[in-house]
C-alpha cells in the first residue's frame, strides 16, 4: 500500500537541515488530525518497538506538547515541542528538543526548528517537513538514546537500503 506513495528524505549536512516529503492515502483533515491530536499522535509518533505517550498537549501558539517515548525495556526519553505557528490544515511550526522527566529542557539539545506543510491533491495528502537542527550532534543523540536498539532492521537489510539510496 505504501510502496506507491512518495517518501523523500534528503539532508543538507552543511546546514544541519533535513527535508522530508511524504504522501498519505488519506484526506487532509485526517492527516492534520494525526499530526495535531495527542490521542492519534501517540499511535504512531515513535518508531516501533518504542511507543509515544503525550503527557500534556496545549495545542495553541505558545503552547507545548510534553511527551515521552518508552522502550520495550521501559526506558523513557522525554521531549518537548513548543508551537510557534499554527495555520489549521496548512502549516505547523514548532521548536523541539529533549528534556528530563520534570520537563527541564537541556539547552544543548533544544532548538530544532520544525516546519510542516500540508496539502491535498486528489485525495492524497502530502506533508513536507523541514527540520533545522542546532547541530547534527542532536541527530546522533536521537540514535544514541536508544532508537538504534529499537531497529528491527538487520545490518544486511541496512546494506540493501543503502544500495537503494
Amino acid at each position, binding site marked *: 500500500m505504501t510502496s506507491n506513495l512518495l517518501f523523500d528524505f534528503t539532508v543538507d549536512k552543511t546546514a544541519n537541515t533535513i527535508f522530508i516529503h511524504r504522501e498519505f492515502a*488519506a484526506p487532509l483533515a485526517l492527516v492534520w488530525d494525526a499530526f495535531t491530536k495527542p490521542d492519534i499522535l501517540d499511535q*504512531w*509518533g515513535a*518508531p*516501533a518497538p518504542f511507543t509515544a505517550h503525550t503527557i500534556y498537549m496545549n495545542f495553541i501558539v505558545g503552547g507545548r506538547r510534553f511527551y515521552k517515548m518508552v522502550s520495550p525495556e521501559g526506558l523513557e526519553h522525554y521531549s518537548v515541542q513548543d508551537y510557534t505557528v499554527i495555520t489549521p490544515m496548512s502549516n505547523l511550526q514548532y521548536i523541539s528538543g529533549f528534556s528530563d522527566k520534570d520537563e527541564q529542557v537541556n539547552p544543548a539539545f533544544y532548538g530544532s526548528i520544525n516546519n510542516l506543510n500540508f496539502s491535498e491533491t486528489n485525495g492524497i495528502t502530502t506533508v513536507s517537513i523541514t527540520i533545522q537542527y542546532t*547541530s547534527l550532534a542532536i541527530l546522533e543523540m*536521537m540514535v544514541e538514546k536508544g*532508537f538504534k536498539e529499537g531497529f528491527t532492521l538487520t545490518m544486511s537489510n*541496512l546494506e540493501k537500503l543503502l544500495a537503494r539510496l
Partner: protein
Amino acid sequence: MKKDIFQAIADPTRRAILTLIALQALTPNAMAVKFDMSRQAVSKHIKVLQECELIKPAPVGREIYYHLNPKKMQELDNWLAQFRKIWESQFNQLDKVLSTLQNQQK
C-alpha cells in the same frame, strides 16, 4: 569514532573546509588564505578533521595537500540512513493509523 565526526562537523569553519576540499585538495596555507585565518587556527581544524579521518593528507613535494576521505563521508551517510529509517518506520505506522481511522468513519 562516529562521535568525533559529529563533533568535527558541528563547527561551521570545519564544515566550510570540508566543502572546499571536496572540490579540490588544499594545503594548510591555501586554507588559511581562503578563510582569512592564521596558520595555527587552520592547523587546529585540520587536526580535528584528520583525527576523525574525514580528511587525508597527501604529501606533494614539500607541501601537504589535504583531501576529503570519501569512505568516512559514506559512514556519515550510512548513519543518516538509519535516521531516515526512523522516519520511514514512523510514517508506515501512520499509514496504518490513517487507514484504521478511515475505516471507522465508514
